[in-house]
């Protein structure tokens, strides 16, 4: 997209700015819709209606909430570390925003076509940890500190199984670029990585179950990375009040909020891109049938977003069903189960890829 834009504007700087803004155009409406969806999903799962008053079936509720948050007083307690306190929410948001640079929404709508996209995503999401630690420490609040420390421990730990799983997929596809990976899984859904890729041979048959395991591990650890139930330790409401963002209010709080929902979609999108064909349609394109090139792009965008949204929905579903694990159980799940399993899985996938 950057290349096309720089040709259009004739200046790489303007093109960079424009292509940097595109994900924001997606994130803000997405968050508004996702928060509304979360409330409606929660409501209907809990035998109640959810928001009903603002607009038709409460459709404007999150918009109203957004404006309410904007207008709220920005409270900063006297004994906080102002510098870090102010930077932290933006750093957290920057971390989750940076991930969008490498997400292929369609075959041409892609922030930056870097070859090491996956690597970049893993690295950039590390920023979130720094932001959360900053927020917890600078708040000068014991609950915040606990939340931040838990969060740091959790995200760092769960990055290991994530990376191992990514590694096994990379071994199989031999590319680190998400765009290329998506391109490889074209045509029909049985060509997706979770079903062993596009080539029909013995490898495909052997590798499918292990790819499914890899997907499961990836999804579980991604839940932990975005601090969603059952792994929402850092903000475990009943213990730590609100965790690292206890002391935040108004616009800074909404930054954390924005980052959380942006992250939810980001990890779902990554899972979709590396396992479930990315933007590829499961049944082929209408655009190709009638020969309309632009329609293919629209379809790809539709498929990418709807696959991502489905997994966002699954995250919500889990959140409103499951209790929360304890902090030591959380670590046990990671170090004693997920990491060994993913290692074994890595080795098996490696062997299968070789033969």
């Amino acid at each position, binding site marked *: 997209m950057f290349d096309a834009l720089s040709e259009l504007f004739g200046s790489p700087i303007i093109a960079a700015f424009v292509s940097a803004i595109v994900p924001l155009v997606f994130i803000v409406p997405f968050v508004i819709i996702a928060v509304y969806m979360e409330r409606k999903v929660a409501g209907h799962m809990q035998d109640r209606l959810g928001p009903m008053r603002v607009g038709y079936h409460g459709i404007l509720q999150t918009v109203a909430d957004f404006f309410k948050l904007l207008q709220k007083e920005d409270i900063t307690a006297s004994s906080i570390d102002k510098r870090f306190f102010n930077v932290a929410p933006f750093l957290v948001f920057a971390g989750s925003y940076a991930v969008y640079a490498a997400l292929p929404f369609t075959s041409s709508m892609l922030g930056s076509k870097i070859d090491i996209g996956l690597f970049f995503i893993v690295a950039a999401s590390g920023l979130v940890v720094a932001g959360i630690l900053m927020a917890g420490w600078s708040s000068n609040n014991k609950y915040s500190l606990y939340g931040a420390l838990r969060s740091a421990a959790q995200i760092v730990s769960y990055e290991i199984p994530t990376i191992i799983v990514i590694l096994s997929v990379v071994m199989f596809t031999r590319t680190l670029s998400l765009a290329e990976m998506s391109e490889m899984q074209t045509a029909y859904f049985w060509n997706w990585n979770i079903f062993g890729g596009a080539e029909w041979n013995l490898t495909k048959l052997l590798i499918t179950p292990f790819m499914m395991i890899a997907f499961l591990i990836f999804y579980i650890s991604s839940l932990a990375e975005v601090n969603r139930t059952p792994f929402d330790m850092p903000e475990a409401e*009943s213990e730590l009040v609100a965790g690292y963002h206890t002391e935040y209010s108004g616009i800074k709080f909404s930054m954390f909020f924005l980052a959380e929902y942006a992250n939810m979609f980001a990890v779902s999108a990554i899972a979709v891109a590396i396992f479930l064909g990315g933007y590829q349609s499961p049944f082929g394109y209408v655009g190709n049938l009638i020969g309309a090139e632009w329609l293919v792009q629209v379809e790809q965008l539709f498929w990418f977003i709807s696959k991502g949204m489905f997994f966002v929905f699954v995250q919500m579903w889990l959140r409103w069903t499951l209790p929360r694990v304890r902090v030591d159980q959380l670590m046990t799940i990671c170090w004693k189960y997920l990491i060994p399993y993913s290692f074994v899985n890595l080795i098996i996938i490696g062997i299968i890829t070789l033969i």
Partner: protein
Amino acid sequence: MKTEELILNMGPQHPSTHGVLRLELELEGEVVNKVTPHIGYLHRCFEKHAEAMTYPQVIPYTDRMDYLASMYNNFGYVIGVEKLLGIEVPERVQYIRVIMGELQRIASHLVALGTYGLDIGAFTPFLYLFRDREKILTLFEITCGARLLYNYMWVGGLSHDLHPDFVRLTREFIKYYRPNITELNNLLTFNKIFVERTANIGVLPAETAINYGISGPNLRASGVKFDLRRNDPYSIYDRFDFEIPVGEGMMGTVGDCWDRYYVRVLELEQSLRIIEQALDQLPEGDVQSAIPKRIKPPVGSVYTRVENPKGELGYFIISDGSVNPFRVKVRAPSFVNLSIINELSRGHLVADIVAILGSIDIVLGEIDR
């Protein structure tokens, strides 16, 4: 390097202290060394007020102690005053009191179980249980007009007779509610994560429990088959056939948080059984015929105790022969049950404190009075 223990104040405003309770935690990392509860934030001088009121005027104040089980607070108090006066209450009144008391027990347990789920992080069971609790409150509302604080049981009688539809509606409620216990079990009780969080946590041995005066479901969860409705029967509880569920350590050790939770789940079914039997036997009669015109007990004192949903609710009433009680002391079950929190929590993690506190099921209105 100089190190010191981290003191963490949990409360008075905290999502899982169930009211204005302050727990002072001495922590080493996330491990709790000592818990010091600080109570009294909701102290309303009930006992001082009672000394300035006439006997019937005290009843609305008892409502406000354990506000989740107001019926039962009324129940205990009026039994005490009736004992002092030496009056017999009509059969119908007795039966209605038992029905109300057991409905109240279900309602109270529903709050306890729901908020416990909330403490562990499961939000949905809470709303499912509150949905059913609302139905019980509606039954109370058609009976006496109030949903939370009833002032329903009077000395020697009741404030209102049953609504003509009450029996039918209650039967419908029981029929509707029974399957929901299974739903709760599927959703929360046997959930793997929930069991992991609560089994083997905060184990309370029977000896310690008795020594600390723990009562109610908490005591029974430790394997002690002790229920005042059976062991020290009051009103007409000796006429009903019901079982006393005790903790069996099905998921871990006897007397752990899961047992305390599960005993309450089992008690729901037993309460339904008692209500069914009471509805079948409900006699006709006037519920206000035995209410004395003037309540002026002779000099003396009496200690009565009833099996409140939270445990043993005791009223120690001293009469000096006037229309005002000379002294009313309430032995609030939550007050006694909370005193064990330090014993149970030592060596557990912060997250477990929440699980333990929730499993004791306290109501601050009753602790602070």
